[in-house]
């Protein structure tokens, strides 16, 4: 059986930084029960524990790269262009560090898909800005389809 984890990284109390957890909320009841959904604040050891041993880890996080708000960046683990500088991780060390640490410890999932949503507003407060809300809805559909297909294929 394919072990699949979907991890939403971010803090819902920092508006658009909550894009990851919002995607997880949208995916509930949209995925096969074998697909494990998790929210994470991005602390690297928790991230590593969440994806360790998975065949596929789908990670959703907010990002600030200068692209228009709501832009979705899609990366696989093999894309070295994903760097730490643009991450809007709202905690401790960021996703790039977690990936690098997991690589050093040989604890990466077999495959990782990263979905990074361009944030507009990461100030204190709850609620997503309209462009990010649209991106989150799009990602929920896309990831639900992706993981359902992978979890159920023979």
């Amino acid at each position, binding site marked *: 059986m394919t072990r699949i984890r979907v991890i939403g990284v971010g*803090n819902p*109390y*920092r508006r658009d930084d909550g894009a990851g957890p919002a995607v997880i909320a949208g995916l509930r009841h949209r995925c096969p029960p074998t697909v494990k959904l998790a*929210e*994470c*604040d991005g*602390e*690297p*050891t*928790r991230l*590593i*524990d969440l994806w360790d041993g998975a065949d596929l880890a789908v990670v959703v996080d907010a990002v600030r790269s200068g692209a228009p708000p709501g832009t979705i960046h899609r990366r696989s683990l093999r894309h070295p262009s994903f760097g730490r500088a643009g991450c809007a991780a*709202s*905690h*401790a*060390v960021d996703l790039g*560090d977690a990936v*690098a*640490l997991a690589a*050093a*410890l040989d604890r990466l999932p077999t495959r990782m898909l990263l979905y990074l949503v361009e944030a507009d507003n*990461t100030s*204190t407060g709850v609620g997503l800005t309209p462009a990010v809300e649209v991106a989150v809805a799009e990602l929920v559909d896309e990831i639900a389809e992706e993981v359902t297909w992978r979890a159920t294929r023979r």
Partner: protein
Amino acid sequence: MSHRNDRALTVGSLSRVEGEGALHVRVVDGRVTDVRLQIYEPPRFFEGFLRGRGYTEPPDITARICGICPVAYQMSACLAIEDACGVRVDGPIADLRRLLYCGEWISSHALHIYLLHAPDFLGYPSVVELARDHRSIVERGLAIKKVGNAILEAVGGRAIHPVNVRVGGFYRVPTRTEITALAAPLQEALEAATATVDWVAGFPFPDFEHSHELLALVEPGRYAVLDGVIRTDRGIGFPVRAFEEHIREEQMPHSTALHARLAGRGRYLTGPLARYALSGPWLLPEARAAADAVGLEPVCRNPFRSIVVRAVELVQAIAEAIRLVDAYRPFAPAAVPVLARPGVGYGATEAPRGTLFHRYEIDKNGCITAARIVPPTSQNQAAIEDDLRRFVQDRLELDDHRLTHECEQAIRNHDPCISCATHFLELSVERS
């Protein structure tokens, strides 16, 4: 360039949940004239969020202030609300709270020692490079941290922002099986933590001493975490409810965070160095033995050696968790009733990085009308600036890159939340 007599180091800022930090150091004629650590304290916003909310809500709302020490916020909030309502919680509920708190100390201290602080001493830019060269050591740290997380999950319901804590106790009492499952991993963690003390004690430490007054909760008979009175190493003592009479917060022009000072006395330091100095006699035998084995003196005044003290506290938290797990029996009810009444309540506990104070005012309907949170970060701000001022003065011969790195290390001595931010800070130099 770096040997100029006039220079300014400016470390830029980054937005973070736990705080936004920036460091500015000015040197004129070879003397450090100004050190400003600028931290924005998010709890101020939370104090606003809390007004108008129900008296049972602070444990869940304030847990969101920090992803590393949510239990500290939950516990200080519970104690303060219960104090306002005239309830004191003890017995098995208090023991289970203490076990939960041990989980947070284990997780937070292991994170700080292995992932944030140790790379500084060993010449690595981050834990990633450390892991490439010393994989088994980093794995040991992660294994210890995982045991802390396991406690948080078993007692708190989940590792981040536990959901099982409520005013008066817990929503659900863990089964005996859930708690005894922690025993074997804790025994392994005890061995790993003892080895950690030995490992970090061998690091090279700068010759540096602070002169801060040390402040912590003290509960004679045991290493204070969730109870006790506030004391300093210079003889000041007062109950938690008198915190605001003795601790004054001052507005500093350079920072939106308030600087806390002991009234009529000045800066002070809270956290592991203070706790160890004030509660050291009540360390459990395992922790005492670990401290003695590396020759840790009764009062450690070198902030760089806080990593050793933190490792001793790691042993302490694990040894205490082992005892609490052994003694655990499920109990009922999971929480004692706490009925709202108008009043003011105070609570303080020892968060991994220092004393965390909460005050709530509640009206007759159980609605919060005022809230005050004084986190250890703002209490330590003046002490950290003083460390930096004296530390930089003796190292002006270093180039800006090296000096900035050492300043960041000096900040990391005290506070993992700021440490997180400093990982991202970029240096710019302006010459006057």
